[in-house]
C-alpha cells in the first residue's frame, strides 16, 4: 500500500474541525428541540434520559468513568505494542494479541514449574527477547522491503505458529495469574462519595500507575538515548537511516523486544482481571479502534485513543446500550473511531498524510 491518502483539499484540518463542531452543535440543538416536543418518545430516551440518570446517580457515573478509564489504559497498553512496531518497521503486527497470551503463559508456566516469581519474570523477558531475535532473523530479514500487506500477512503466520506452539507447551487450560507473588495489591478502596460508593480496585490503580510509568519510561528512552534516536530515524526513513549507519536489524530486535515487554505487562494486568488463557487473544482486537483513533504512529495517540474508547464505550453501553438490547460495546468503539476518522483520516495524532503524484 502506498501512503497516499485522503483529500486533495489543503486546508483539511481547519475545515474538518469546523465541520465537526457545526455538526455536533446541530445535533445537540435538534435533540433539545426534539426532546421538548416529545417528552416520552425515542428522542427523549436517547438525548435526555441518560443524562438524567447520570445526574441522579453520580456515584454510578463516577464508577462508569473509572471503569472506562481502567479499560482504556489496558487498551492503550495493547495499542502501544502495535504502535511501537508499526513506527519502527511499518509492520502492522497482528501477532501482538498472541504475544500477550504467550508472555503471560510463559510467566505462569515457569512459576508452576517451581521457579520463583521474580526469576520467572526475568526468564520470561529472556523468552520474549529470544522470540524477538527469532522473528527478526526468520521472518523480517528475508522479507525486508516487501509491501506492508505482505509483512502483515507474515505476522499472521507468526500468530498461527505461536498458538500451536503455546498450546502444545502450556496446554489449553486456563491458569491463575500469580498476582500475590508479584506483590500486586488485592482488594478494593471504597470511596463513599457522591451519595453512594465508588469502588476502586487496587489492581486497577496499580495497572494505571504501571502503565503510565512504562509509557513515561518509553518516551524518555526514545527521546534521550542513542537507540531511541536511531529508532526515530528508522521510523522516518529506512533508507536514510541505513545510509547513516544505523543497523535496521538491531533496531527491529529492540522494538520487537520492547513490544514483548509491553505484552508481558499487558498479560499480567488482563490476567489478573480474569485468568490467563488463549481467550485473552480476542481482547487484543479491542486495540484496533484505539489504533485508528490515535493514529498508527503516535504513542500519545495510543494513550488518548485508549482513554476515549474506554470511557466512550463504557458510557455508551451503560447509558445507551439498554435502549437497543445491550451488548453494543462490541461495535461501539469502532463507530466512535469511524466518526473521528471521517474528520481526520490519519487518526487524531497520526502523521499527516501528504500525497503526491
Amino acid at each position: 500500500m502506498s501512503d497516499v491518502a485522503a483529500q486533495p483539499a489543503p486546508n483539511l484540518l481547519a475545515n474538518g474541525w469546523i465541520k465537526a463542531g457545526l455538526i455536533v452543535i446541530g445535533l445537540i440543538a435538534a435533540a433539545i428541540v426534539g426532546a421538548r416536543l416529545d417528552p416520552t418518545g425515542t428522542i427523549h430516551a436517547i438525548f435526555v434520559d441518560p443524562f438524567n440518570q447520570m445526574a441522579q446517580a453520580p456515584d454510578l457515573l463516577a464508577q462508569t468513568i473509572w471503569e472506562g478509564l481502567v479499560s482504556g489504559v489496558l487498551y492503550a497498553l495493547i495499542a502501544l505494542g502495535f504502535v511501537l512496531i508499526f513506527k519502527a518497521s511499518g509492520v502492522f503486527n497482528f501477532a501482538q494479541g498472541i504475544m500477550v497470551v504467550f508472555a503471560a503463559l510463559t510467566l505462569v508456566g515457569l512459576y508452576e514449574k517451581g521457579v520463583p516469581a521474580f526469576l520467572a519474570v526475568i526468564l520470561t523477558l529472556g523468552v520474549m527477547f529470544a522470540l524477538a531475535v527469532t522473528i527478526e532473523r526468520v521472518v523480517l530479514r528475508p522479507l525486508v522491503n516487501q509491501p506492508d500487506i505482505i509483512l502483515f500477512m507474515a505476522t499472521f503466520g507468526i500468530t498461527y505458529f505461536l498458538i500451536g506452539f503455546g498450546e502444545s507447551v502450556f496446554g489449553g487450560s486456563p491458569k491463575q495469574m500469580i498476582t500475590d507473588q508479584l506483590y500486586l495489591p488485592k482488594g478494593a478502596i471504597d470511596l463513599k462519595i457522591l451519595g453512594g460508593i465508588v469502588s476502586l480496585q487496587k489492581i486497577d490503580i496499580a495497572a494505571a500507575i504501571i502503565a503510565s510509568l512504562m509509557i513515561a519510561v518509553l518516551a524518555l528512552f526514545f527521546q534521550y538515548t542513542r537507540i531511541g534516536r536511531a529508532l526515530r530515524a528508522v521510523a522516518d526513513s529506512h533508507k536514510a537511516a541505513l545510509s547513516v549507519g544505523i543497523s535496521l536489524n538491531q533496531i527491529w530486535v529492540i522494538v520487537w523486544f520492547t513490544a514483548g515487554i509491553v505484552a508481558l505487562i499487558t498479560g499480567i494486568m488482563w490476567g489478573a482481571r480474569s485468568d490467563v488463557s488463549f481467550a485473552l487473544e480476542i481482547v487484543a482486537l479491542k486495540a484496533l479502534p484505539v489504533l485508528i483513533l490515535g493514529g498508527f504512529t503516535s504513542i500519545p495517540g495510543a494513550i488518548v485513543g485508549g482513554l476515549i474508547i474506554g470511557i466512550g464505550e463504557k458510557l455508551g453501553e451503560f447509558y445507551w446500550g439498554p435502549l437497543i438490547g445491550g451488548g453494543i460495546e462490541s461495535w461501539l468503539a469502532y463507530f466512535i473511531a469511524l466518526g473521528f476518522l471521517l474528520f481526520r483520516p490519519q487518526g487524531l495524532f497520526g502523521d499527516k498524510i501528504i500525497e503526491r503524484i
Partner: protein
Amino acid sequence: MKKSSIIRSVALGALLAAGAIAAPANAQDTIYVANNAYRTGPFSGSGIPIGDGMRDYFTMLNERDGGIGGVRINFEECETGYDTKKSIECYEQAKAKNTVVYSPWSTGATLAAIPRAHIDKIPILSMAYGLSASADGSQFPWVFIPPLTYWDGASIMVRHMANELGGMDKLKGKKLGLIHLDAPFGKEPIPVLENLAKKYGFEVKLYPVAAADMQNQGSLWLSIRRDRPDFLYNQGWGAMNPTAVKEAIKNNFPIGKLVGVWWAGGDDDARAGGAEAKGYKSLNFNAAGTNFPVIQDIVKHVVEKGKSLAPKEKVGENLYNRGVYNSMLVAEAIRNAQKLTGKKVITGDDMRRGLETLNVTEARLKEIGMEGFAAPVKVSCADHSGHHKAYVAEWDGTKWTKGSDWMEPLKEEVRPLIEANAKDYVEKAGNWPKRTESCEKSS
C-alpha cells in the same frame, strides 16, 4: 532449490489428500465411538477436563472389563476448538467411520448435526446441551438430550430462587438477572424464564456478553449494580465464567446469589475468585470428588498407569466427572443395545434403540460404582430427555459440595413449550422426515 522444494510440498499435499480420501475401514471386533472435544481455542478451559473424563471412562472400561460385553470400544476424539466449521468436518468423519453415536459438544455443532443425523441415521447424544426442543422424541428420533435440557435448568433456577425466598408466592416483584453468552447457547433459557416470569410475577433482566467481550465485562456489571437484581443466573461458558465470578466479587454482588448453569460449574471457574468465591453456586447433575468406586477404578486402571491425559489432581473435578457421566450414558446405552439385539457389535440404529430404552436405575448406578454420583436416568421413546432432577452445587473455597437437595424441573411448564417448539422447528425445516422408527416394547 526453490522450485524443487515447491514441487516436494505439492507432492506431499497430493499424498495427504489421497490419504484423506481413503479413510480406513473399521475393525469388526470393536465399537467405534466418535466424540468431539475442544482442547484448543478460547473454550479449552472448559473443554479439557470434560474431554479427559470421557476418555478416561472408556479407557477404564477397556482396561478393566475388556470393553463392553466383550467388545472393545474404539473411542476417538475429534478436535473442534469449539468451531462449528471443524465440528461439521468431525461429523462427516464420524459418519465415514460408521460411528454408533455422535457427541457434538457444542450447541452450534448440535444444531448443524441435527438435520444430517436424521438422514444419515446416526444417534446424537447432546447431554444437557443443544436444542432443548429435541427432547421431543416423536419429532427427533435420532437426538437425545438426557438428563435434562437448558429449559429445565432455567426452571430449576426459578425453583431454587423460590426455595431461598421461602415459596413460589414470594417470587412476586423479585428481579432475576440472566448473564448469558450472546449466542444461541446463551439465549436458550430466555423463553422459559420469560414465561415463568409472567406466571409468577417476577422480572427478568438480560445481560448479554459478546464472545469478544468474555473477559471484559466491566460495563455489564455496572448495569447489574444499577439494576440490583435479587438473583443472577449465569448461562456462560469458557473464559466468561471465571471473569463473571471475579466481577461479582469486585462489584460486591452477594456471591451466594450468583448461580451458574451446569457448564459454569468448573473448578477453575470458581477458583478464579479466590477465597471470596466461597458460596458461588452452580446447577449440577453429577457429584464432584473422587470418593466413588468408579473414579477410584479410573485412578487405578488409567491414571496410575499413565494412560490419562489429566494430571492426577484434576481427576474428580466437577467437569471431569461430568465427562465421566457422559461416557457412562454412552456405555450404558451400548450395553442396553447389545441386550436388545443380542449382537455384540452394534450399529447406529441399534444404538438408537439402546438410547431410547435407557434406564439407569439406582441399583444399576450402584453396580457401576456410581451410587450417589448421579440421579437415575430414564429415557423413553417420546421423551428423549427425561427432564431429570438437578441440585445446586456450592463452592466451599476448594471444592464443589452439594448445596441443596435434588430438585425437579417445572416439567408441566417446560414440556408443552418443548413440544410446541419441536413442532415449530419441524414445520420451518419443511419436509422433515416423519418418524418411522418403531418404539421398543420392552423395558
